């Protein structure tokens, strides 16, 4: 590539860290033959891992490290800089090795979060049940990331029978033991899947009518069948574990507490859809999940549950962990592909959809963690039986006595869930996260399923149930949500890039009691902005960025007087 190389050289430590990802360099210069081209440029997907490795080693990505990674991967430095600067957690200016990222997002604000001097404020860290929360990153020879507080409250339903998705966690199964996983029923579903054959698995998944649990509620069976019948090869499997919706932590609990289940479910999905390789993309803020999954993948590989001959069936599948670098938009599936491929995480235009043109331009199954976790029961007990026993996970946070992850039957009333968690009659509930909807006290009877929530103009989204008690400052939450979307917009399309800024500015004027024109004028402007963003943004981020804000205004009158 036309490299205009940076003159800065990497330190030995940075060089070693980057080499650990991209491999040792061959003799540099002076030779007779060099091989590069397509084969080298196909390694671009290692760019983000290489930058991450350099940062974990020395605490930031220096010009020398950036230039070296560029050179090794044949990426123009300007391009690599564009990637590095896209992600919040990549530091391009020198900073101490030990950094504290303190969450000041909505759930943690309800718990009185303050950002101490010297710490970085952070959007939601997915630790809402133990708010206020923080993430400490320590670079060095033995880098560490620590989620704070290190231990959260116990699973509220621990020891309860009748759970499906949380069964093993509630029963206290050891998440680091493959044998304990098997003792709790692990790998029975994969055995069943191999008996059913790919077509049989597809049939069960379609019959189960399982809907995606990442927020978009797309029928999983339809997606899998579409990929399975694509003639283009290879097919890729991607598990979307970039759980970044403020207030959401369900996938983290599953990954930390039941990592083998996810590995097994991915294997089944790959088997049904004809994938040989899978990627598990986890947000950078979940170090414990990384550790557990890395371990689970290795253990499964050792025991032949992954690899060239899965369970002796002749089916070949392996998966690898990819770690994000702090970007909410990468939860959007095509942005996630871009991120894995080593690019800025900017969503693609659709169509073509991922089932046709996905990761590396190939047909791709992309599923959320909770969706995949459900597949074990779909295959284990059959699609029809699954439908009757279907449950959902909800992330309870805010003003409740027992915050945490709850599994309840689909159709449970919101009020019942609040009672389970011990909530006093609230001022408002945020359902579905920052891209979701504020509900008032009159809406609490709603049944928690797709149809009923849609009927009242709300969404289950990623299962966020954030409770705002009578003392809560809703205007503060609304302003924080607006700031969040402004910050997280990737900037690629105008409606979102400009819209999120205008929404925030309008809300700030209202909050300051200084509307431009009348309050009604400002509310009309917000409506119009929301409409444009919904209609014209490329991806779900922009399309939903104004949802929570407008719902707070229209349903609860926040900032509207």
């Amino acid at each position, binding site marked *: 590539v036309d490299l205009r190389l940076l003159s800065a050289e990497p330190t030995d430590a940075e060089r070693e860290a980057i080499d650990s990802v991209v491999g040792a360099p061959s003799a540099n*210069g002076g030779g007779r033959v060099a091989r*590069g081209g397509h084969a080298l440029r196909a390694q671009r997907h290692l760019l983000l891992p290489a930058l991450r490795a350099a940062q974990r080693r020395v605490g930031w990505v220096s010009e020398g490290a950036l230039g070296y990674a560029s050179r090794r991967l044949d990426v123009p430095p300007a391009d690599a800089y564009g990637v590095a600067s896209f992600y919040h957690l990549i530091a391009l200016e020198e900073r101490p090795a030990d950094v504290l990222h303190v969450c000041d997002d909505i759930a943690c604000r309800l718990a009185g979060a303050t950002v101490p001097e010297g710490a970085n404020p952070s959007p939601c860290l997915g630790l809402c049940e133990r708010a206020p929360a923080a993430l400490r990153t320590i670079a060095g020879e033995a880098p560490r990331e620590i989620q704070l507080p290190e231990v959260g409250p116990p699973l509220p339903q621990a020891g309860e029978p009748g759970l499906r998705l949380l069964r093993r966690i509630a029963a206290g199964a050891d998440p680091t033991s493959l044998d304990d996983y098997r003792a709790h029923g692990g790998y029975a579903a994969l055995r069943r899947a191999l008996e059913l054959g790919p077509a049989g698995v597809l049939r069960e998944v379609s019959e189960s009518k399982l809907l995606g649990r990442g927020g978009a509620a797309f029928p999983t069976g339809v997606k899998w069948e579409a990929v399975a019948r694509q003639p283009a090869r290879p097919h890729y499997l991607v598990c979307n574990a970039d759980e970044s919706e403020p207030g959401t932590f369900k996938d983290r609990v599953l990954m930390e507490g039941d990592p083998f289940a996810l590995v097994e479910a991915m294997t089944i999905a790959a088997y049904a859809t004809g994938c040989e390789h899978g990627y598990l993309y986890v947000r950078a803020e979940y170090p414990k999940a990384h550790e557990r999954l890395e371990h689970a993948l290795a253990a499964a590989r050792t025991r032949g549950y992954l690899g060239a001959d899965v369970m002796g069936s002749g089916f070949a599948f392996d998966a690898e962990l990819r770690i994000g670098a702090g970007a909410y938009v990468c939860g959007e599936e095509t942005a996630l592909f871009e991120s894995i491929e080593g690019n800025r995480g900017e969503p693609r235009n659709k169509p073509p959809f991922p089932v046709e043109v996905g990761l590396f331009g190939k047909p791709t199954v992309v599923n959320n963690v909770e969706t995949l976790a459900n597949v074990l029961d779909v295959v284990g007990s059959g699609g029809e039986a699954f439908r009757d026993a279907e449950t959902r996970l909800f992330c309870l946070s805010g003003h409740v006595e027992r915050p945490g992850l709850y599994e309840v039957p689909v159709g449970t009333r919101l009020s019942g869930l609040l009672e389970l968690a011990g909530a006093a009659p609230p001022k408002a509930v945020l359902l579905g996260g920052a891209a979701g909807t504020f509900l008032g006290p009159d809406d609490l009877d709603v049944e928690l399923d797709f149809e009923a929530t849609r009927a009242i103009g709300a969404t289950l989204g990623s299962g966020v149930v954030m409770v705002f008690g009578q003392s809560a400052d809703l205007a503060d939450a609304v302003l924080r949500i607006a700031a969040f979307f402004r910050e997280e917009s990737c900037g690629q399309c105008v409606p979102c890039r400009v819209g999120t800024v205008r929404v925030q500015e309008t809300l700030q004027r209202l909050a300051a009691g200084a509307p431009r024109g009348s309050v009604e004028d400002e509310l009309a402007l917000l409506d119009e902005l929301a409409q444009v963003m919904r209609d014209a943004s490329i991806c779900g981020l922009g399309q939903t960025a104004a949802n929570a804000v407008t719902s707070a205004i229209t349903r609860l009158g926040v900032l509207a007087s």
Partner: protein
Amino acid sequence: VFGAGGGTSSYEEVRDADLVVLWGSNARETHPIFFHHVLKAVNRGARLIVVDPRRSSSAQWADLWVGLDVGTDIALANAVGRELIHAGLVNTAFVERATTGFDAYREQVEPYTLERAGEITGVPAEAIRELAHAYGRADRAQLCWTLGITEHHNAVDNVFALINLALLTGHVGRYGSGLNPLRGQNNVQGGGDMGALPNRLPGFQPLSDAAVRSRFEASWGRPVPPEEGLHLTGMFEAMEHGELTALYVIGENPAQSEADQTRAVRLLEGLDHLVVQDIVPTRTAELADVVLPAAASWCEAEGTVTSSERRVQRVRKALDPPGDARDDIEIVYELGRRLGHELGSPRGEDVWDELRSLSPMHAGMSYPHLEELGGIQWPCNEEFPDGSQFLHGRLWDEVVADRAPFTPVEDDPPVDVLDDDFPIRLTTGRRLESFNTGVQSGAFSSPLHRHGEAIQIFPDDGARLGVNEGDRVRIVSRRGAVEAPVRYDETLRPGLAFMSFHFPELVETNVLTIDATDPQSGTAEFKAAAIRIEKVSA
């Protein structure tokens, strides 16, 4: 190539190729527009192989870079040919139907085993094999070259060595496969097409052909002398022998662009009369008796240019030339008038129509037709009314009337041999932002100019010679010596040095180069000089 003075393919075919081989070409810097088409092919999935002593910036894009020793191209090509034959990658149907002389070629390349070629070229056998197999197996392959092939004392043999490979594999004369010498500037192709060659009349028609001559004589009303003229190097020889005493130079700067520059300047100074016609005051113009200021042909004149893909395109006048500068045609016609010859109307279109009446390959290209199609690739005539995307399609006819001959050629190393006194191979070339002697590019400010001229060497050589980056050194060849700062360059290797000649006011690189010349093309061996590097005490 096969009697036609141009590349066989179109840019579109380059974009659609499966393999592009750049042999002795750093197109990334020297033909950036063409390389842009190569990149489109690469981004589509095509493989790129670069054969160049330096791991040039083009090679940075390549799937495979083959770093042969300077001037060993024939050995490499012959080994590739032998490997194609032994690996069963010869297109036998094409060879039998469309070529002649295969048996002689096969016999002649037989000694060029991969191992022997490896010894001559320095390239590992495995890489030669990979190159051969990639070329032999590609469905569509483009073989492109530039001055790395032609600036040698055996330039024409080098070209034949490459043509032989295309004949072996049938990579010529059909869509997507071709042989392409890349042309400099926007109109080097056009210059040759218009007969600015000592042995050709306009339309690339051979001067030796009496029928051709008589057509021109009929139109011009005067005899056309059948003797070949001199090419540039021959002119300097004639000056040396006192046979040539007056020179009319149009748009050239031989005082700085000729090899062995000291000699070139001496000979120009010794002329009785020197006329220089140019758009800027060049070093050659400083030596001239008369300077004729010319209009810039891309914006101050009407006419045509012809690109590397043989595409004739209209150029339109946008500005009046400044001061006394006049259109080139006007100057020549006025000169003719004062010498007693009325040459007719100096309008661009009239001159063009005269050419169309004399050059069969341009016959169909009226100005309106050029306008209509946005440029036309020659030949364009009754047989090809809208021009021709690629040449030599006839080689794929059922019965090939005019077969293409194999031309066996032998390895013949550079004239300027390396020895203990001159142990380093110096090769010269261009850089992206500069053009030749800097007449057109030197006056512009560019961040890439900031280094000026330097001698680029491999860092290990610098360490061995005890010179650091930035140190001034004395560079000595058998012809002269210059001083220049050192720059380290990892794309070289020990014993290989590189210089450009863009800043003759700073470093007169061509003082070093050798004027050993290919007898057929007249091109000097700019690419291979033997030098030593001496430390200069500050």
